């Protein structure tokens, strides 16, 4: 852990100013990931900007009928929010399948998006890691890679993004609202996180001077037909080997719209809109689901320990779609 200074800010513009002044500064909210990273000497911010006092801690309706999740609302408060539970149960379930109750009580929504990979090598400064120290190499590619990505990998990095919440947000096509020196902008969820490519050290498209203010959910919540399936090595407090957020809009036994997002398989929540389109107008049959699974995983590449994920993901997709389709329609 390095020596750092600490400042507490009370509004968004002060936070943005702090970040703009010092690119080595880090925002801290719940700290559930950042403090670990600092203790491991992986993150070495020279300044911590405590944003907990900024009033971004509300969940409220948006003018278009959606729901705005303040960036500083805790994961627990979001998951148990009445509106979220009722209208976006997929999100509730995804959040509650992540971490532990204690962590969810501290972790914030903005922080959830900003958490970093759990790659063993990223956390261990005794080993090379392109994400931690660009140019040193990826230890996972020919190392222990049980938890690693099978889709969208690069020769530089095969890390996965560990969030559950974000998998649901990807399926729900949330909008990330951010504020920076140049004002506000909205980032579609699919564009928020990045694939590793040649710059695995950069996880997101958030600019260094920008801060997340809210995550906005569109009106459509897929409350009637959804499933969040998380497959993992133990039943709680384990990151997903594979997770699937499935959201369906049904017309009788026919699928009107399908959304699928995968966690645990890539450097970001994984969507494949072409594959999703395959389900449009189709009936609910195992074969139809299997076909989509095959398309989504068609280009998947395993690295040894994680190769099983390719087959597992297909199985999980089929299962999640089946659960989503078979849900009793709610009034």
């Amino acid at each position: 852990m390095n020596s750092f200074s600490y400042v507490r800010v009370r509004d968004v513009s002060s936070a943005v100013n702090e970040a703009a002044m010092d690119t080595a500064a880090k925002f801290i909210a719940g700290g559930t990931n950042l403090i670990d990273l600092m203790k491991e000497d992986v993150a070495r911010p020279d300044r911590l900007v405590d944003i907990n006092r900024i009033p971004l801690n509300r969940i409220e309706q948006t003018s278009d009928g959606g729901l705005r999740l303040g960036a500083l609302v805790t994961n627990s408060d979001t998951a148990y929010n009445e509106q979220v539970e009722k209208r976006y149960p997929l999100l509730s379930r995804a959040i509650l399948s992540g971490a532990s109750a204690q962590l969810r009580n501290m972790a914030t929504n903005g922080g959830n998006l900003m958490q970093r990979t759990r790659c063993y090598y990223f956390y261990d400064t005794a080993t090379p890691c392109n994400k931690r120290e660009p140019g040193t190499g990826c230890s996972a590619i020919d190392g222990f890679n049980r938890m690693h990505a099978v889709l969208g990998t690069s020769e530089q990095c095969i890390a996965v993004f560990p969030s559950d919440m974000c998998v649901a947000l990807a399926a729900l096509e949330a909008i990330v609202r951010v504020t920076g020196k140049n004002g506000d902008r909205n980032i579609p969820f699919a564009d928020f996180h990045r694939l590793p490519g040649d710059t695995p050290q950069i996880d997101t498209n958030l600019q260094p001077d920008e801060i997340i203010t809210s995550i906005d959910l569109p009106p459509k919540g897929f409350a009637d037909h959804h499933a969040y399936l998380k497959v993992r090595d133990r039943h709680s407090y384990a990151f997903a080997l594979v997770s699937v957020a499935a959201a369906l809009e049904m017309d009788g036994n026919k699928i009107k719209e399908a959304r699928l997002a995968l966690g645990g398989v890539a450097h970001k929540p994984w969507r494949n809109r072409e594959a999703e389109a395959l389900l449009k107008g189709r009936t609910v049959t195992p074969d139809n689901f299997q076909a989509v699974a095959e398309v989504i995983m068609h280009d998947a590449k395993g690295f040894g320990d994680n190769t099983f994920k390719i087959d597992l993901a297909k199985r999980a997709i089929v299962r999640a779609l089946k659960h989503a389709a078979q849900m009793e329609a709610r009034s």
Partner: protein
Amino acid sequence: MSTKYIGQPISRVDGRAKVTGQAKYAGEYNVPNLAYGVIVSSAIAKGRITNIDSTKALSLNGVLQVFTHKNAPRTAERDENYWDEVAPPGSPFRPLQNDKVMFSGQPVALVVAESFELAMYAASLVQVEYKIEQHVTDLDQVRNEAYVPRPREGIDPPAKPRGNPESALAGAPVKIEVEYSAPVEHHNPMEPYATTVLWEGDSKLIVYDKTQGSVNNHDYVCNVSGLSSDQVRLLSPYVGGAFGSGLRPQYQLVLAVMAALGLKRSVRVTLRRQQMFTLGHRPRTIQNVALGAATDGKLQALIHQAIAETSQYEDYSEPVVNWSGELYQCDNVKLGHKVVHLDFCTPCDMRAPGAVWGLYAIESAMDELAYKLRMDPLELRLKNYTERDLNNNKPFSSKELRECYRQGAERFGWSKRNPEPRSMRDDGSLIGWGFATGAWDAMHFPASAKAVLSADGKLMVGSATADIGTGTYTIMTQIAAETLGLPIEDVTFKLGDSTLPKAPVEGGSFTAASVGTAVKQVCDKVRGKLFRVAQTLPKSPFANAKLEDITFADGHMMLTSDPGRSVSIQEAMRHGGLSSIEESADAAPDEAKRSQYTLHTHSAIFAEVKVDEDLGTIDVARVVSAIAGGRILNPKTARSQIMGGIVWGIGMALEEESVVDHKFGRFMNHNLAEYHVPVNADVHDIDVIFVEEHDSIVNPLGVKGLGEIGIVGVAAAIGNAIFHATGVRVRDLPITLDKVLAGVAVPKREILAPAA
């Protein structure tokens, strides 16, 4: 015999102190002028340190010293000085005494500063340069170099072969030959290792240390540092779990002592969770088992050979294979145990060392044989049941294993099992029922205790044993209160202090027997003294009585035949002019008697799993464990011990593995997020049965100890249940979902063309 405390479900006497935070652990003693040490760990597995640059660290205001092999105080020269009670043969690791790196994570420097945070930061600035040498950490790579290790004290080498195992196997009508693999596991107690050394001036030290043996570590500190016995007092009143990892001194102890002596001030050194993976561990072990049987299930041949790892500097070994020769009636048996040198630190005893791996293999193999014979697995065990230990050709001092089988099977409902794999289903899941046997030693070692009974009727009993969460405080208090007939609130038991009468390390399930016997003996001495004083009372009701005629209860002595005739303990002491009675006792096992028998605890474990066939996920829905462990001193703490063992067994079967990256020779999942142990959601119904077992040979108390038996056999029972559920036999622990899925046929489906 009716008892008031022994055998009763007394709540932990230390429970309140623990849940209210009054119980202080080694890293929690705060004293003025305390300095903080942070260890710098080696980044490589093997090589030499060519340079350590501490300049940046030392330039920080408040950094007191950076100890390295260049400047650290020299500890003793000879290996003997580093040998502790449980050290295996070899040359123990000496922190900061030379430039050699022998395992990844080895301490290479100790940074001491005025604050913990500063020490952490300074440690990150220490630059270490190495000359890297080629390491070997993959057992499979060098298994052909396996050798028979030098014998470890207290551990029997594999029994000599009997009969003609190879030819019997060749001729057996039914046989199996299989290999099982088990990974490295780390103990990972909740409390990390920590030592706080209080500098008392004049090289006098009070050392708060996390250990399973305060005397063992006290002696180690003295031997290593050259301090005399009375210069060091080592205390360890509370231990937040250890599971064997605290049997030997861990390196933070000698580093903290070194720093305190070097700086002449109090120093604390605490390990980080990641550093907990740089300590001894349960060794990766490969086992080959061959079983041959007649068509009726009678065993004709049994061959069990294990290869495990040890370090480059010590010959660590475990009793892995002996159990196989003791459990069953078989005339043709061959057992073998070898080790290979790897560039890890020396492995270390971990709950039921040897037995968990050995019983995992033999009890999985017996299950495999049962299917091949188309025989009920429990029936196969009964068919080959033995009343004698054929390894040593001795009778068992007691063995209620048959009753464990019967009661466990009945509670579990084993008779309703459909023997066919994949035949039982519930709610879409495959259901599997599996079974295994467990065994462990009922050991007994010399131990001492002292007792002080005050005039106010309060009793203090002490022995330098430990309570690593097992319930030692409680059961010793029960034994003392029972023996002297005192209210349990009036009895205090002290432990974890090297100035108390000597006790062995707490481990091996031998504390209840060893220390319990000493406590009983010392209290019996007090009893005798009280009785003799009571006899001198004017008109003593005991004038013509003998000690055997007296009952001690409710703070009184009374004639058993006429309880109305009694004398209060306080009255007797007052009369005798005694302000206190002090006694001590050195208790030893009755080896003449014990050596004629084999002394074991036994268990039968029944497990039900639910397997999601599509995803490979496994739930252990319920476990029934029937234990024959001699006399149960406290069914509440006893049940906790067994439950803890079962939960750990679930982890062993399904989750636990310290994963090595052989490129770096380093354990990579070195945190509790990635090193998986069961969480609440993984643990369902657990049912513990204590089968009545009387044993007058094992020790005067008739107790056998329960620390280990709970875990033994659990992984086999679960693995066997998974086979019964799925038809997939995974012989490589842990049984993760990918291994199950790999065994289940993948359904083939056509790819659908895009919708028009």
